[in-house]
């Protein structure tokens, strides 16, 4: 069934979109991430213009993350104080990111920037995840005791604040910087940033794993809402019909994924997610390196 997308100004198969939403929702339920990093490249692949794919991807991430946040909040796994610090950084970061995106669109390098951001970020995160989880799987039998959290230069910064839920007493500069960086990336890549935020919170900020998922969802929901608003107001590229179809499949897919995820062990899940992230990065890198079939492209002049 073909459906005409009013903002993208093109007609797409509705079942294809619901199917993509389902697949991405399934994976995001399985791995506990928003899935925006898979969704935006897939949308670009089926011919949705990059600006619309990025903006609508952010909107879909918002919807997908809300249900996760509600579930985590009920279990008390959200650190609102840490979340707010991350969020202030995230909102400022996404403001800067949307400006950067508008500039890239004017000079005609959106596609390049989106691809390069994806290759670099996904390549790095995916590689680290695979390495870390492979090490964890190998180390599983030799039960080595680890310290609660390591102390290094970050803990010497000023402006310290106590985060009770996270059992941390650290400077607000690192979480602010993490939030800002994720905000920029989410505006340019159309992702919530959960897949980067979770490792950053564990390894960089030293937060306990129990509150990491909930707090990252807290940040992702509000940053994605901000990106959606900014993209809608400044660029007019959010397609609500596209979002609606993706969420329709995504909501159902997330349930199947989540129930399957409980049967997988942590290390295996992380290794699989890492491989998935890496393969998306490699396929986008191939797209940049391959000689394009048509050297010319046209677009509306801005």
């Amino acid at each position, binding site marked *: 069934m073909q459906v005409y997308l009013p*903002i993208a100004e093109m007609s797409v198969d509705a079942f294809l979109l619901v199917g993509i939403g389902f697949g991405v929702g399934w994976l995001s339920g399985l791995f506990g991430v928003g899935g925006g990093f898979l969704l935006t490249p897939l949308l670009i692949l089926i011919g949705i213009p990059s600006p619309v794919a990025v903006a609508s991807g952010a909107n879909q991430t918002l919807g997908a*993350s*809300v249900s996760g946040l509600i579930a985590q909040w009920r279990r008390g796994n959200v650190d609102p104080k840490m979340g707010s610090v991350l969020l202030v950084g995230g909102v400022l970061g996404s403001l800067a990111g949307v400006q950067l995106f508008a500039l890239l669109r004017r000079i005609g390098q959106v596609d390049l920037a989106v691809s390069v951001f994806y290759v670099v970020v996904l390549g790095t995160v995916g590689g680290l995840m695979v390495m870390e989880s492979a090490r964890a799987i190998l180390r599983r039998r030799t039960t080595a005791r680890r310290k609660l959290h390591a102390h290094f230069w970050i803990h010497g910064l000023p402006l310290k604040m106590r985060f009770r839920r996270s059992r941390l007493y650290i400077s607000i500069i690192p979480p602010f910087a993490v939030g800002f960086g994720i905000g920029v990336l989410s505006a340019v890549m159309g992702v919530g940033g959960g897949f980067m935020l979770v490792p950053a919170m564990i390894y960089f900020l030293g937060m306990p794993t129990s509150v990491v998922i909930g707090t990252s969802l807290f940040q992702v929901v509000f940053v994605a*809402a901000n990106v959606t608003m900014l993209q809608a107001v400044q660029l007019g590229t959010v397609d609500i*019909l596209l979002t609606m179809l993706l*969420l329709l499949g995504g909501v159902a897919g997330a349930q199947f994924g989540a129930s399957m995820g409980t049967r997988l062990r942590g290390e295996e899940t992380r290794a699989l997610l890492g491989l998935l992230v890496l393969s998306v990065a490699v396929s986008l890198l191939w797209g940049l390196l391959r000689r394009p079939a048509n050297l*010319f492209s046209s677009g509306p002049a*801005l």
Partner: protein
Amino acid sequence: MIRLVLLLLLAWANPGRAQELPLVAALSQDAVEVTTGFTGTALMVFGSTEGPIGPGGDEVLILARGPTRPVVVRRKVPILGVIWVNGPSARFAGVPGFYFLAGTRPAWQVLPEEERQRNGLGLDSLPLSSTGARSPAFRAALLALESDSGLWVEDPAPVEIAGSRLFHARVPLPAAVPTGDYHVEVLLVRSRRIVARQELAFRVDRVGAADRIATVATEQPFVYGLACVLFAALAGWFGSVLFRRS
């Protein structure tokens, strides 16, 4: 379709009236509605002539043009011979978003070159002025890209003739057709001169939900953004409710 049949009947039943004018033409519809289920459509241009058309007689040319907009054409170049990025670009002003030309015979066969160029009959005679990169390859690329998308069509099939005085042609409008005012010109050519012309028009409009969404998105982007955010949050909440039940 009904109008087509009626007009054809009228033309046959009342030849005296048709002969007052050298050329009578009409469109099967004067408005094309783009709904959320729009996948492209086609409209008919049809009419009759005073004298016989076809081999040995007069020729009919049909030209349809959509609203114009500025377009940028970019060429990809390899940086350091490795990564392909958008390099030089040319900006074309007043590029028609839709172009259709058909005739009982191709325009270049029935009109002198100068006359054909002056009337913009043929993709090669479009007045495309560009700023930026100078290479003629950009113009050629624009032609190729628009032709591939089905928005620029030249001589897809000859205008069909029935009974040597009636003609009709199908103008295909793909799903990506831009909205706005369209102009259709029907020309009658006799001995390599344009002897009669009729101008017709139709509109392509978004209607229903597609129109309301696009209107709100452009006129009240803040309200639209807020609606998108609330809608997505609501869908997520609904999902979590469903999840708790099962």
